[in-house]
């Protein structure tokens, strides 16, 4: 009796069950197709990003190099205004002697030097002397260290070691936000040392400026392409796609050639007599250079989304507005423009995301005044070797970009990204 309500599939199981089974099989098949790539991306891309985030808080160099010192130093009262007692110095001597053998003490010195300048040379110098120190025949380690260098009696050196003895630190993020931890708590650094906040602000301003320039130059072009007949718009589209497809390095070198002091633009202006020969325009190695070159490079990323939105606006709407008495300007402003706003939004977010993380072009045409935060990150990773600070700056930039990515996904949808 109970079976009368159940529809059966051909093999005798209930239809509901076999449908669920086939749905599950479909899902598994889809996931199996996706799995190789997902695994690949996770391993080669997401894991490195995670590693970078980890490096921005990682701080095991002090606790790894000076395990004994860290243990006994934790009992020392940093507010006492006195150098720690004999026990700490003995532990420190033992740790340092081992570290010197494996040459780890220089790494320790440069790590602590980020927090307090002078420690690097102090550790290096002491390292050489500790080598000769006989651990079993030293009556007082404190006196021995005082003799090596008076700075070891300075409590602030020990405060720094104590502060950075934990496995994780927020020190890099504080440095990236122009803050520093002193004995009186977290404080802003001196006005002349505030570089990162200014750099972030400059990066944002320049990216906004570039985005604005792209809207200004891209809107008329997209409008023209969307309203021209297919045949001529296809031809003009090539002029947009050619720069899009040309190598970034080619376009950057083009601007380097054009904008130089002895470059094509300045030569032309001198030849025209607009400017005097001795009074050539400073177009490169400053903000102007970066903005001009990057507007050129990112302009296609504004035109293409704008164009695809404008293409969907029926031309009859404008005609209807005009037949009801609107003049050209009114019809454009009240009817066409509001419908093209999604295109402006999509293009702007895309251009802004790309601009904010640019590295190559500012590096070549930006000089010192026209560089972005990315250039600073690259400097810390490859030249100054302060990896933690580079990673912390990168983490902050990543958060900004991901927030914008989320916005883009919400309003435009990542599936709707069109290429070419």
């Amino acid at each position: 009796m109970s079976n009368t309500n159940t529809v059966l599939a051909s093999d005798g199981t209930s239809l509901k069950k076999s449908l669920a089974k086939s749905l599950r099989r479909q899902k598994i098949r889809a996931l199996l197709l996706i799995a190789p790539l997902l695994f690949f991306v996770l391993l080669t891309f997401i894991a490195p990003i995670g590693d970078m985030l980890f490096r921005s808080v990682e701080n095991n160099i002090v606790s790894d190099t000076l395990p004994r010192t860290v243990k006994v130093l934790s009992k020392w009262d940093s507010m006492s205004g006195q150098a720690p007692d004999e026990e700490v110095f003995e532990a420190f001597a033992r740790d340092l002697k081992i570290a010197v053998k494996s040459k780890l003490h220089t790494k320790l010195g440069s790590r602590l030097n980020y927090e307090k300048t002078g420690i690097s040379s102090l550790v290096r110098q002491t390292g050489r002397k500790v080598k000769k120190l006989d651990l079993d025949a030293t009556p007082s380690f404190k006196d021995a260290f005082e003799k090596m260098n008076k700075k070891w009696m300075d409590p602030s050196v020990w405060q720094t070691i104590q502060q950075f003895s934990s496995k994780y630190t927020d020190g890099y993020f504080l440095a990236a936000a122009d803050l520093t931890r002193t004995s009186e708590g977290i404080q802003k650094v001196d006005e002349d040392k505030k570089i990162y906040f200014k750099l972030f602000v400059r990066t944002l301003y320049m990216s906004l400026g570039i985005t604005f320039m792209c809207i200004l130059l891209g809107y008329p072009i997209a409008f023209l392409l969307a309203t021209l007949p297919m045949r001529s718009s296809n031809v003009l589209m090539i002029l947009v796609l050619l720069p899009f497809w040309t190598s970034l390095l080619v376009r950057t070198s083009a601007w380097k050639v054009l904008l130089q002091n002895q470059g094509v633009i300045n030569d032309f202006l001198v030849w025209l007599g607009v400017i005097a020969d001795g009074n050539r325009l400073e177009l490169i190695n400053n903000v102007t250079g970066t903005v001009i070159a990057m507007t050129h490079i990112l302009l296609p990323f504004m035109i293409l989304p704008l164009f695809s939105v404008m293409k969907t606006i029926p031309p009859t709407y404008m005609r209807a507005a005009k037949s009801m008495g609107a003049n050209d300007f009114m019809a454009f402003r009240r009817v066409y423009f509001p419908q093209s706003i999604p295109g402006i939004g999509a293009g702007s977010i895309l251009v802004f995301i790309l601009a904010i993380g640019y590295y190559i072009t500012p590096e070549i045409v930006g000089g010192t005044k026209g560089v972005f935060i990315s250039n600073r990150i690259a400097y810390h990773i490859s030249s100054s070797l302060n990896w933690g600070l580079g990673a912390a700056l990168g983490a902050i930039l990543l958060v900004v970009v991901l927030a914008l990515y989320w916005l883009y996904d919400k309003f435009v949808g990542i599936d709707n990204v069109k290429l070419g």
Partner: protein
Amino acid sequence: MALPIYASPMQKIWYYTFRIICGLVFFFLVFPIMVIIPLSFNAQDFFTFTPEMLAFKAEGFSFKHYDDFFTNQDWQHALKNSLRIAPMATILSVSFGTLAAIGLSQSHVPFRRAIMAIMISPMIVPLIISASGMYFFYSRIGLQGTYAGVVLAHAVLGVPFVIITVTATLVGFDKSLTRAAANMGAGPVRTFFKIQMPLILPGVISGGLFAFITSFDEVVVVLFVGSAGQKTLPWQMFTGLREQISPTILAVATILIAMSIILLTTLELLRRRSERLRGMSPG
């Protein structure tokens, strides 16, 4: 939007002003690229037009920068590296990417949005962040400074482009075709190669071209992940631009421009073919 015959003078003025503005923007887009081409034939080591060039005299022009490119060991080495890395990276991203795109366009995919977001992220995350992360992580696992490391890094950067182009072609794909094939006795593998693959091939190829150009043009990641042995063409150009700026760069740039024109044409032809195959446009 041709100008109607009854247009007022104001409308006429605006119409022509608008065209002039657009012309100027097009000039801004194309001129910097075009100016490189004549400059690359400069007989002098200058980056600007010499009086001889402006007078169109033969002695103002020469192929010496091209000569330098084809004979200089550094440039040839860089070119060879680029040609060794880009195709491998393309093969990896196209094969993984196409499979995943087919999976993603099935009707029931759990966590579709999240998976999509992860796969597109290499395109969104600033290159300098990807590069530093890879530098740290690849050094840990011994891939930093190796050919394999650079290939893997470039492959993952190309993945989003393959995903985007292939899913776009799959949107117009008629599912009843695969069902018809299955109905007539073809197994899944045969259906894929005989039915699905030929139809989505234009999307796969254009995704592959995107992936290729991404790798061929990439400099930030290779700077960090590669070592001197993996010096690619863009890397050589980058150091050339930053340090000893030599006009050979202009010759290389001209060759690359020619390459991008060929690429652009191929893509346009592919797009038309794909639309015709799927019956989306009459021509």
